[in-house]
């Protein structure tokens, strides 16, 4: 057998580790993390779309990636415990791996269909406003401009209906 170069040794160690410790969770986490980073980047590069739509979509995609990452960790843990509990209670210990795979499919599907979208719906916009600043709220409560010509802003005819005592219902 020939001697391996440091690169070959590292490559072999990586492959052997992945081969011995093959957990679907590692793949799911890597994919969730990479999607959470790359998808929003590509969305922001879509110049054919209006900026605010892009911002919301990109933020939602990143948030989905983050939520999915955590959800997969929790789901994996709960599925392991749940399958073990059911297998022990029903005397199906030898069939625990089978039970784990079916329970995993159910829980991952339900998480993808309901849990992650629900969390994203509830959290995307409030979190986006907190991180990027809520421009709409700022527009609703504009800060008065400093008027160097006097204490009060210059009078405009348009303000006629909004000032002074009103009689009747205008």
């Amino acid at each position, binding site marked *: *057998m020939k001697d391996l170069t440091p690169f*070959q040794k590292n490559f072999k160690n990586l492959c052997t580790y*992945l081969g011995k410790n093959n957990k679907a969770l590692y793949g799911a986490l890597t*994919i969730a993390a990479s999607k959470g980073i790359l998808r929003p980047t590509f969305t922001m590069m879509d110049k054919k779309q209006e900026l605010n739509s892009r911002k919301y979509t990109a933020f939602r995609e990143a948030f989905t990636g983050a939520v999915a990452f955590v959800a997969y960790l929790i789901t994996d843990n709960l599925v392991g415990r749940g399958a073990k509990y*059911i297998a022990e209670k029903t005397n199906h210990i030898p069939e625990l791996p089978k039970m784990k795979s*079916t329970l995993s*499919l159910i829980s991952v599907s339900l998480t993808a269909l309901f849990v992650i*979208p*629900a969390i994203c719906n509830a959290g995307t*916009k409030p979190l986006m406003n907190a991180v990027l600043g809520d421009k709409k709220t700022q527009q609703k409560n504009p800060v008065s401009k400093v008027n160097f010509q006097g204490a009060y802003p210059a009078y405009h005819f348009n303000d006629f209906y909004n000032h002074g005592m009103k009689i009747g219902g205008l």
Partner: protein
Amino acid sequence: MIDKVAGILLNPKFVNFANNTKYTVSTESIFKATGRPAAIMLDNHVDKDTRKYAATKEGLYQALCLGIYLTMIPFVFQKYGFKLAQKILKGDSSLPAFKNAAEYLNYAKLAKMDIKDRKGHKLLAKISDTLKSSPEENLTLKEHLLSDKKPPEFPTAKGAIELSNLVGTVIGLAWIASELSNYILHPIMRGLGFEKPKNISEN
């Protein structure tokens, strides 16, 4: 009640379905492609145009992901990733000269079976008659399968496939699908009537 749950979880058809990666990925992708756009359309925090854009993008992206996963991952990344790993570790007994990833996967399936089940199995015909883990080895891998209770499993070969799948999934799903969806999203949105032609604003 719990016995009924166990019965459902251990239903042979369901177990086979859950152990087939293609089926599970397809199921999850279909749920994502339907559930996520529906949820986006229900998000009343944002205007309708933004919702339509985000929902169409999500549905299209998930559909592209499924297509790429079923085609590019096994036929491109797994195939060439395994070959590349064999080149890198050429001559090393941890990764024998299997014809391709499929031959190794067939070998791995047989190696996990009981020795009595291996003999006469249809997959045995798909394993090379002359392949050895190294030239110094006396027995071929096929002979190991027929005589050893626990034939060598070659975790490095399995890891090479896992690594190829992982790299392929990141490149295919996170990069190629994202870029591809940017190109075809707007024509599809115009086709669905979600976007007016030339209604483009630069920001």
